[in-house]
């Protein structure tokens, strides 16, 4: 049981580390959201599942599992809402060499 706990928390820390590296190194806002939005959700879920496994079956571990379910529901929702707000306020995605995006004129016409 303890070995499984250590394994789950180590995998969670690995996902957190890769998310942080992507968050620091990627070139614009959308690719940074791509790095953090998924790996933070998975890292938090795996780490909290390992801690609930270490606690055993009690009210505390059920609360930790409630936190896991809550994070699995709310973290992609928050990421989507923030991405939608950035897209609606006119932030353009990064392209290689600054090439124009194909549907840029369509979206500018809509606004």
């Amino acid at each position, binding site marked *: 049981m303890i070995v499984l706990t250590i394994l789950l928390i180590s995998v969670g820390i690995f996902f957190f*580390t890769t998310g*942080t590296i992507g968050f620091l190194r990627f070139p614009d806002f959308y690719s940074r959201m791509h790095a953090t939005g998924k790996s933070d959700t998975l890292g*938090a879920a795996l780490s909290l599942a390992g*801690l609930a496994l270490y606690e055993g079956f009690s009210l*505390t571990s059920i609360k930790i599992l409630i*936190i896991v379910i*809550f994070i699995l529901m709310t973290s992609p929702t*928050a990421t989507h809402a*923030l991405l939608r*707000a950035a897209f609606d306020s006119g932030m353009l995605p990064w392209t290689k060499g600054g090439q124009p995006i194909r549907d840029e004129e369509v979206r500018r016409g809509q606004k």
Partner: protein
Amino acid sequence: MIVEDFFLIISLIMGLLVFFCLYRVVYGPGVFNRIIGVNVIGTKTLIILVLMGFIYRRIDMFVDISLVYALLNFIVTIAASIYFQRKGVHH
């Protein structure tokens, strides 16, 4: 006892990652980079709170604080994103 030392090391690594994310919150271009930085730091803080509960042997108290922290993190991100969606941001 060995497992609690492991939890302490994991907490220190999490604190280091929080400081790396704090770079993007302070220097990040635009307001949305700062908001997503605060969101990432909040998720990491939630894990640190549960780990601190296991280290200090007060997990029944710390897990409630962690649950409230998860709720606050979600509400802050949603409120900030809706506010800037309506207001618009000048780049």
